[in-house]
């Protein structure tokens, strides 16, 4: 079986994606254009299409973790979408959407599972970059992550999901391909803001312990694994978040929908 390969880097993880259809490759290439990277891959993810089923495979040298990955691959390996194929003239489009959905979700699950082993995490947050630094905004769904990022008028790294990872001794916010708006890049984090809509613009420093707790509740987790393996990942995540909160100041930020929050952040912090 001939396959096409695409190397990408997401939040510091180098991934080799291997697909067996031209359409699948083109879809991935279009989606991940900005994330292409030629470094040696940390792991390989295979997407194969076989008898109306998508098959997912995984290869990687993760030092003692291969059993976890095998478990995960087995659980994720035969995702059956055959009953959801559309018939008729829209079939191709819907199939493409389904394939995109599958690629996107599979890649996200694997990255959020593997990234903590490499010292990073995926988190539900928006982040903007300005003047070589980044600012991270964390809030509930419909809590204003996108609004606040758009109001800044700065480069949006992502409006929904970012990677936190350590590069050159500092913690960085990294763009990810998940979310409606994303622009490839990674920047040292200046501050983390837990946002809430309000009738006023106000901020308050958050202590380290509260920040760890709040960050943890916004970590992207859907681990298809056993409790033992999940515990190991959680251990990594907790350690990472403690390190992040030791270095990066965190704040509660209350804001009004039309506030130019970013100028206020720059002024106050």
């Amino acid at each position, binding site marked *: 079986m001939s396959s096409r390969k695409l190397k990408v880097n997401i939040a510091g993880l180098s991934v080799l994606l291997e697909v067996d259809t031209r359409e699948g490759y083109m879809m991935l290439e279009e989606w991940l254009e900005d994330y292409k990277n030629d470094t040696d891959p940390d792991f390989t993810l295979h997407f194969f299409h076989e008898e109306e089923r998508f098959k997912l495979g995984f290869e990687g040298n993760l030092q003692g973790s291969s059993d976890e990955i095998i478990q995960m691959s087995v659980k994720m390996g035969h995702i059956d979408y055959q009953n959801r194929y559309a018939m008729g003239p829209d079939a191709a489009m819907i199939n493409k959407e389904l394939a995109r959905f599958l690629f996107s979700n599979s890649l996200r699950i694997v990255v959020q599972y593997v990234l903590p082993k490499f010292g990073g995490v995926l988190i539900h947050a928006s982040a903007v970059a300005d003047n070589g630094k980044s600012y991270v905004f964390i809030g509930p769904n419909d809590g204003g992550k996108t609004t606040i990022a758009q109001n800044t008028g700065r480069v949006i790294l992502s409006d929904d999901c970012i990677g936190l990872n350590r590069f050159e001794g500092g913690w960085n916010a990294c763009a990810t391909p998940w979310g409606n708006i994303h622009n490839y890049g990674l920047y040292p984090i200046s501050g983390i803001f837990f946002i809430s809509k309000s009738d006023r613009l106000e901020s308050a420093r958050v202590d380290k312990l509260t920040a*760890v*707790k709040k960050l943890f*509740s916004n970590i992207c987790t859907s681990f298809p694994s056993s409790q033992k393996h999940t*515990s190991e990942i959680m251990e990594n*995540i*907790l350690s990472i978040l403690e390190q992040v909160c030791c270095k990066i100041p965190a704040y509660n930020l209350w804001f009004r929908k039309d506030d130019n929050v970013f100028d206020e952040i720059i002024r106050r912090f």
Partner: protein
Amino acid sequence: MLTFKRHYHIPWREIEKKAVVVSVKDNEVVVFNEVGTEIWKFIKSERKINEIVNQVLSLFDSNKKTVKKDVESFLKDLQEREMLDVKQEIKS
């Protein structure tokens, strides 16, 4: 007599003198107060309830009746969160 021991696989860290413990079952972080933190550290190995109560009394100024009630409540919470190994002590 029952013995209590924290699950070895529960991820936790001590941050600012408080135990920050991951409830894997609930997929959330729980922060214990000072007393809870001392109990959590003490039940690294199997402990009977009176040992836990005495440990708390040695560290904090309180009366035995209150401490016993609080310890029982705390252990029940840990058990519900699947953070605890509870065993019947086998007498030799």
